[in-house]
């Protein structure tokens, strides 16, 4: 029984009607981490934004269904959907620089969700925030709560964002390339931390990345996306050992391996790109 279900999600540009997501379907079981890989512009972030109902104005959902547990989100009126999402979901965004409001102190940005969504009192929310900052290994949480985002390093900001995401114990977290903006050593720490927190809180997670190496570390299942079309949906071992689709194969050969960094890399061949694009566009009728 899957927890998050997306059926035939169709997202288009308003006006021109250009298709950004072409009938995307995926299922994520409760407590699982589901990877979403694909090159830049494949539509990974669009899927996350569609689920969280924060699509840009220039874009609209033209069809499909998104179900969270028993609730059909797409059938809810806007306000009820907002409420539902606020209680049950959270986002770990891509860029720690723009993900925190530069004009507000860190503390408020973590406790917002608690006071707002769960109706907690300020003292209780503050205590919880300190607890979570501890959990993401920030020393001196009390000082960090009073800081502004620009006073923290990139790695610290990303930890704060992780703390903020887990604070209200959401059932689903969407992590949109949470480590892409960080340098490699920090990246590994943060990945480990996300995986540990996810396991400890038993949170369902949709993990967006363009890096198969990252997927291999944290995900149990993966959807490979190309031009808004899911070309393959497989469990992680299958994908890494016997990828079914030529595009997944090519993507795998193009990814540096942690166990053998000197293995030669081959860029995705143009012929594969063309064939996959044709396959995606065949959906359009």
């Amino acid at each position, binding site marked *: 029984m899957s927890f998050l279900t997306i059926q035939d999600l169709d997202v288009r540009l308003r006006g021109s009607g250009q298709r950004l997501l072409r009938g995307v379907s995926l299922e994520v079981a409760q407590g699982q981490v589901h990877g979403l890989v694909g090159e830049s512009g494949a539509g990974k972030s669009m899927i996350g934004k569609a689920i*969280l109902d924060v699509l840009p*104005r220039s874009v609209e959902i033209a069809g499909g269904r998104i179900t969270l547990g028993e609730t059909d989100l797409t059938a809810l009126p806007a306000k009820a959907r*907002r409420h539902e999402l606020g209680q049950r979901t959270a986002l770990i965004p891509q860029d720690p620089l723009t*993900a925190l409001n530069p004009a507000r102190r860190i503390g408020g940005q973590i406790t*917002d969700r608690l006071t*707002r969504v769960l109706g907690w009192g300020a003292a209780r929310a503050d205590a919880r925030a300190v607890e979570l900052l501890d959990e993401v290994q920030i020393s001196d949480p009390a000082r960090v709560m009073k800081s502004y985002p620009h006073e923290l390093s990139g790695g610290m900001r990303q930890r704060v964002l992780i703390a903020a995401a887990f604070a209200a114990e959401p059932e689903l977290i969407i992590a949109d390339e949470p480590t892409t903006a960080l340098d490699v050593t920090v990246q590994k720490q943060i990945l480990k931390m996300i995986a540990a927190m996810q396991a400890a809180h038993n949170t369902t997670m949709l993990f967006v990345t363009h890096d198969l190496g990252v997927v291999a570390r944290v995900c149990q299942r993966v959807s490979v996306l190309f031009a808004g079309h899911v070309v393959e949906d497989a469990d992680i071992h299958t994908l890494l050992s016997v990828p079914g689709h030529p595009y997944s194969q090519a993507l795998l050969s193009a990814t540096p391996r942690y166990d053998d960094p000197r293995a030669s890399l081959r860029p995705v061949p143009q012929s594969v790109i063309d064939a996959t694009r044709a396959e995606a566009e065949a959906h359009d009728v």
Partner: protein
Amino acid sequence: MAEALQIRRRTPLRLWLSCGWLTVFFACAIFAGPLSPQDPLAQDLLFERLPPFWASGAEPGFWLGTDSLGRDVLSRMIHGARIAAIVALVAGFGACIIGTTLGLIAGYYRGWVDQIISRIVDVWMSFPAVLFAILLVAVIGTGLTSVIVAIVVIDWTRFCRVVRAETMAQSRMDYVDSARIAGFSRARTLFREVFPNVLPVIIAVLTLEMGIAVVVEAILSFVNLSISSDDPTWGGMISEGRLSIHQAWWVLVFPMITLFLTVLSFTQLGEALRERFDPVLR
């Protein structure tokens, strides 16, 4: 490196000088009565065209000389500061409030609201501003209120454009999505999350706008469309001083320098504020 250091050292000085001058300016505006050595309206034909204090023929008490009607230049300049300050503040804030409100709405809600507001701004800005002001004052009559109304009616677009652009840029940031996901309504997200980040830009534009308002008021006084020509305004003084430039240069030169320094200070302060409060540069 050397260049960077230089810029860093120059900024506070610029800021201090501008603040200093504007403090003097606003002090003159508030305490115009007690600060003026003479009655700014008193004419005395025996004392006409007295030179400034250092020249031979100067009279004590008339520090910067008198004009062709024997009125004290310094006292008139101090009272002129009061009118300039009123225009700068009232017109500046008026334009700011209208332009900021519309700019926030257009930049955040986008869609047809944005299209309507942006179209109005485009059409509005295609009129030549000063001509527009003159026309407006000509229609609604001269006087301080009409000058202020004219400036507000013309210059709200300046705020609207800048605020709209900045609001759009801020709205694309991930923290806005996070606020929405945390259950904040659109209106609340706009005011609690986006607005504080647009505020530094608003303050900077407001400061610049005050300088512009002072110039516009001077221009309107210069062409005699502001308040009655008896009342001391810098523009009016410049206009009158122009006629006697060969006999009494000081009547023209002192108000001009004052006007220039005041506008320059507003501009410099606006730039400095922007550098200082911009969250990205901070």
